[in-house]
């Protein structure tokens, strides 16, 4: 066996773009989503800048509409949905189950190319004139009236959707078929349970979105009335089909984050996760019940009151498994030996922010209150607490946690903690005022607003600049660590997962010896050494 790892095995650029190695594909994805994250972030920055002034001072309505659409489309489909599964997931799934690669390595590379083609199409639509529909592409506005490049953008999302489907398929099959001997379901790390649930949603919800967007494009191109009420179509049908994907998509975004946090909490409090089976099955429950609640996006759309009642009820139910997770994480911390390394700071931030986001979600599940705050900043704040406060925070936590494994280098701990704290403070300053704004009645997608809302908007924009700084910092210290960081040991956190039992960075086929698993994950004790899963 050569002593080369997956990075040093071949330096040619071509070897990267034709690779079948899941670890290299993860790096390719990482490059892609980082690019999209900062493009989407730039749009957000410009929006927050515009909102400092109530009169719509800096940009025209057309430009503003394009900004928030671009922010939404790029962040949802090209950052949040692929982020954890395709980067951290791609990297660690085979490692965690002791496999040499995913079940379908070529398919994995294909899905990266599809993702980039989809992203390129969407960016193309943005650069030749933009889209002004909002990320939801609601008909009949998107098909009849919009003066943006809807079809191209929709085509981009359509293509990227197939990338999601293939990734989900790959994970499901891999977790079923390629587990190392001895790795039973209840010995799987919780990250894999959450990715499995995520993959189920990716595979079963995304195709509906694909067909819906296809119909939308047909309607716009040929002027036929699939969703156009004046031609007998039903715009609410579009919304049903769209949210049948897009609500579960929220769980595509948050479930992997929950999985990462489960790992981090266990490692950094040196304890097994409290109620392992509950946490595992709550992922599956969220994945399933998440399919039954989409109508809560349509309470004021004109859907029948009966349907609204059912959807409202189901939306309360879906809070239960999320709450189980939060309680179990907190219980894990209890009497643990908690250390506050940077990944743990992110994990703790996740728990707090996700709880706020989740609880305000219950407000929105109430029919009566939802009618009042629909399409206000209350909703905007709520889902940013889940998506940014939850998902992006977990992503950063996971990125720091697995960074030594991925790159073989250690980052600078003090800088990393500073960035984590900066992000936490900046985030709250940005989005908490938006709850207040929403409760006062400020509608979303408005860049001209009554002057009495200005003070909260200024707070929010100030917070956004701190947040932006927090997100820029890692570029520098993580980039620095790539070249000058100390060499990482194989298992810097003394963690039990299989991914830590191989070298950092891992060899091309992950393990030099076949792996046999002998124990459950998280075999930590406060006084003794942690027991790796294959020891």
């Amino acid at each position, binding site marked *: 066996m050569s002593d080369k790892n997956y990075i040093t095995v071949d330096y040619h650029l071509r070897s990267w773009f034709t690779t079948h190695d899941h670890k290299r594909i993860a790096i390719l994805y990482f490059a892609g989503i980082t690019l999209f994250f900062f493009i989407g972030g730039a749009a957000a920055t410009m929006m927050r800048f515009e909102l400092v002034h109530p009169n*719509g001072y800096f940009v025209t309505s057309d430009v503003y509409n394009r900004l928030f659409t671009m922010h939404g489309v790029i962040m949802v489909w090209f950052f949040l949905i692929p982020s954890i599964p395709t980067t951290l997931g791609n990297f660690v799934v085979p490692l965690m189950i002791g496999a040499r690669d995913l079940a379908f390595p070529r398919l994995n590379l294909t899905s990266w190319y599809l993702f980039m083609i989809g992203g390129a199409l969407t960016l193309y639509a943005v650069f030749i004139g933009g889209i*002004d529909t*909002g990320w939801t592409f609601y008909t009949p*506005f998107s098909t009849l009236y919009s003066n943006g490049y809807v079809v191209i953008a929709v085509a981009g999302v359509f293509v990227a959707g197939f990338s999601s489907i293939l990734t989900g398929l790959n994970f499901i099959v891999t977790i079923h078929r390629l587990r190392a001997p001895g790795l039973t379901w209840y010995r799987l790390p919780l990250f894999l349970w959450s990715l499995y649930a995520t993959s189920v949603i990716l595979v079963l919800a995304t195709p509906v979105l694909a067909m819906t967007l296809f119909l939308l494009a047909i309607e716009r191109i040929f002027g036929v009335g699939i969703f156009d*009420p*004046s031609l007998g179509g039903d715009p*609410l049908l579009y919304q049903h089909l769209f949210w049948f994907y897009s609500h579960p998509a929220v769980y595509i975004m948050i479930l992997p984050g929950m999985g990462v946090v489960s790992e981090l909490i266990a490692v950094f409090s040196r304890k097994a996760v409290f109620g392992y089976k509950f946490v595992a099955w709550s992922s599956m429950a969220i994945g399933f019940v998440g399919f039954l609640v989409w109508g809560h996006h349509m309470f*004021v759309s004109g859907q029948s009151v009966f349907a609204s009642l059912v959807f409202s009820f189901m939306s309360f139910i879906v809070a239960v498994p999320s709450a189980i997770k939060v309680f179990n994480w907190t219980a894990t911390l209890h009497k643990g030996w908690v250390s506050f390394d940077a990944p743990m700071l992110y994990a703790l931030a996740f728990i707090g922010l996700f709880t706020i986001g989740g609880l305000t979600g219950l407000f929105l599940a109430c029919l009566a209150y939802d009618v009042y705050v629909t399409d206000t900043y209350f909703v905007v704040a709520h889902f940013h607490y889940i998506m940014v406060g939850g998902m992006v925070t977990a992503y950063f936590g996971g990125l720091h946690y697995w960074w030594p494994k991925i790159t073989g280098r250690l980052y600078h701990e003090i800088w990393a903690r500073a960035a984590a704290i900066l992000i936490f403070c900046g985030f709250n300053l940005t989005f908490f005022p938006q709850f207040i704004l929403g409760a006062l009645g400020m509608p979303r997608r408005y860049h001209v607003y009554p002057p009495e809302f200005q003070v909260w908007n200024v707070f929010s924009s100030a917070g956004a600049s701190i947040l932006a700084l927090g997100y820029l910092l890692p570029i520098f210290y993580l980039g620095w660590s790539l070249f000058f960081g100390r060499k990482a040991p194989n298992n810097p956190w003394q963690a039990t997962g299989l991914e830590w039992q191989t070298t950092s960075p891992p060899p091309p086929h992950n393990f030099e010896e076949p792996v046999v698993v002998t124990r459950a994950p998280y075999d930590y004790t406060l006084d003794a050494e942690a027991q790796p899963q294959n020891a």
Partner: protein
Amino acid sequence: MVPGRYQELTIEALRVGTYHLFCAEFCGTDHARMGGQIIALESRDYADWLARQPNAGDLASQGAALFRALGCSGCHGIGGSVRAPPLEGLYGKPVPLSDGSTVTADDRYLRDSILQPDRQIVAGYEPKMPSFADRVSEDELFALIAYIKSLANRESLR
């Protein structure tokens, strides 16, 4: 929030002051400028304000004036030169159309018939009416519809 559907909402202002109206669903370029306000006044102030308004009278009587000014009465009125469907007792009733179907004469139907008269032709009539899409403003349209509504309980005089 479906195009072509009408919603009615009543509010009871508990406090004097200005209430904002916002567009609740993203609707196009100037979505952010699509707003309005309701100003709640004490009844004494309201009476003052009303007295200062030049075109006093309720919406229906404004509509009646428009109905004559725009020439609608020439055809739809009594003894008109052109035969057009009578509007008395129309509102809320079923209307047979020339293609064999039936619609209910609700707000949307009245509005559509003023703006796009040749889309739904009443059975037994010629499609002669011109479109008023460019000739009446949104406010005037409300007035006209209010006038036609006010005829709901009247017998046709023909």
